[in-house]
């Protein structure tokens, strides 16, 4: 493990990409993530990475497709409007089962929006975004350290499952500076053979074709079933989450990314005020930690979901809870980050309501 450095989230991510053996980065500037491209344009190139600023996000994702198809580690990064442009490419990559890493430094939307952080792309990231029945594996960092760590994990998961992986960060995580250290990672040891790659057909094998076109429905259904089976395995094996103070929690907060940081502080404040609050922080948004939420729902009185959007992940919490406890939502939109105090206020009012309910039902 390297020494700790103070780095900006975007730059930590970029540095991790170099160390994780990324062979090709194809990107386009967009606030708040242009530093990824800029850092790699200098550092990445100096250390042997192909780094290309391209003409659009549309071009970038398709270059990632081509590069990933050669078996190399390929990635791109962008922010919400640019990620929208990449949706076609992501559907193709998922269907052709190519490994790659895509980073979304989520900004306020919809439309051109704002450059401030937001979580408005949750649906886009986890429910598709592009056409057809596919899923990205989605990792949600909530610190600069995780911005770096998830790059290694992302490439490993992508290779393991031949699936695109998205790191869903946000503008604040991209811009803020925290201490980070880079793990010991041996690229050669972590590389896996890719016999399906298009590298030029030797006489010893048939040609490799990378495509997502299967005109006959019977064949297309087979492909889809294979993808669904893959997602089933991913759901079984790759769920990641963090819990804080849940053992004796009476009210559970659920939040990811930056919202989770806010919730963590809110939980501390709540405890200080005598409220038994706990936090569940999903780390993988796909596969979603449905089981643990379902389990915790048996224990707590209420759940509060905190997001920086109009209410997106709250739907997955409601699905997990299956109506067993009330699920409420608190969110800010447009790039505004809720404060721990705001969340505490909401928590307190929820507990008061609960108290009134209990008192009137003695």
């Amino acid at each position, binding site marked *: 493990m390297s020494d700790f450095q103070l780095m900006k989230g975007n730059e930590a991510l970029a540095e991790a990409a170099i160390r994780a053996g990324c062979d090709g980065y194809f990107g386009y500037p967009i606030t708040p993530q242009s530093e990824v491209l800029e850092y790699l344009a200098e550092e990445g190139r100096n250390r042997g990475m192909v780094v290309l600023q391209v003409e*659009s996000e549309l071009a970038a994702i398709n270059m990632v497709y081509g590069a990933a198809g050669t078996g190399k580690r390929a990635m791109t990064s962008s922010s919400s409007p640019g990620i929208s442009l990449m949706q076609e490419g992501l559907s193709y990559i998922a269907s052709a089962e190519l490994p790659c890493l895509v980073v979304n430094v989520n900004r306020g939307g919809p439309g051109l929006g704002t450059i401030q952080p937001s979580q408005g792309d949750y649906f886009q990231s986890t429910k598709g975004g592009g056409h057809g029945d596919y899923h990205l594996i989605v990792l949600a960092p909530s610190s600069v350290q995780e911005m770096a760590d998830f790059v290694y994990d992302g490439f490993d998961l992508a290779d393991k499952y031949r699936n695109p992986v998205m790191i869903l960060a946000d503008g604040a995580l991209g811009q803020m500076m925290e201490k980070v250290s880079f793990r010991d990672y041996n690229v050669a040891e972590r590389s896996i053979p890719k016999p399906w790659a298009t590298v030029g057909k030797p006489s010893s094998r048939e040609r490799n074709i990378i495509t997502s076109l299967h005109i006959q429905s019977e064949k297309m259904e087979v492909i889809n079933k294979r993808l669904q089976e893959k997602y089933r395995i991913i759901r079984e094996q790759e769920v990641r989450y963090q819990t804080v103070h849940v053992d004796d929690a009476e009210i559970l907060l659920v939040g990811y990314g930056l919202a989770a940081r806010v919730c963590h502080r809110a939980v501390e404040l709540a405890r200080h005020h005598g409220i038994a609050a706990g936090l569940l922080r999903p780390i993988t948004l796909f596969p979603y930690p449905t089981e643990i939420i379902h389990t915790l729902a048996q224990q707590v009185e209420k759940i509060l979901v905190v997001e920086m959007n109009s209410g997106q992940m709250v739907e997955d919490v409601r699905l997990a809870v299956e109506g067993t406890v009330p699920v409420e939502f608190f969110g800010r939109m447009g790039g505004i980050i809720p404060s721990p105090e705001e969340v505490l206020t909401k928590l307190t009012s929820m507990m008061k309501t609960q108290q009134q309910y209990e008192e009137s039902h003695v």
Partner: protein
Amino acid sequence: MSEATVLTEGMECIWQKPATLTDTLMHYCPGCGHGVVHKVLMEVVQELGIQSETIGVAPVGCSVFAYNYLNVDMQEAAHGRAAAVATGIKRMLPDKYVFSYQGDGDLAAIGTGETMHAANRGENFLVIFVNNAIYGMTGGQMAPTTLLGMKTSTTPEGRKVDTQGFPFRITELIAMLPGSYYVTRHAVHTPNAVRYFKKAVTKAFTHQKEKKGYCLIEVVSNCPSGWKMTPLEANKWMEQNMFPVYPIGDIKVDGKLVAKSSAQ
């Protein structure tokens, strides 16, 4: 006329279908130029001995299934994105031979941005651009290269300038970019045209080996089904109507515009 008996005793075979074409029956309409282009492309790959080092990119269009016929590693690109996909491949494998194969919609409509920028960056690969002024696969709609007055399913009264603009001579534009090295326009409807085309393909692959930069070969071709003609009629119509707008010949050679070319 009766059928003659074929005897090959005392003869040697001087031409047969290249091994770099698969045995799969090509789905193209009878007389379609795609078949000839595939054949010549693979013949050159065979002659240069580069089958094991070549990667192709197929477009969306009639030739979406090109990978069923071309016996090299291939990737299918989304519509219009072949230039970007080819860039991704070539940047990762700079010593391999990479080509993209596109029609007029793929390259000059939806793919205009990727096409122009790949040329502008001087990407060291070959682009084969089959231009038949119509969208064949989807049923005969207008293409950017459709001629004025030409009837298609979306220009039933003929293409009009005031609503649909002009036929798009994108090849000349690409030749203007300093990143393009060899830009040339060919046909494949006569034996001589095919011979010249084969020379151009060989030259382009040689340039790629020498890392000279971006090569584009436009093939002005027919679409018997879309144009609603027999193959022979279509080739005559092509000579009379397509060639004046898309003149056959070299536009840029060794990085320099050819004097009196259609780009001047």
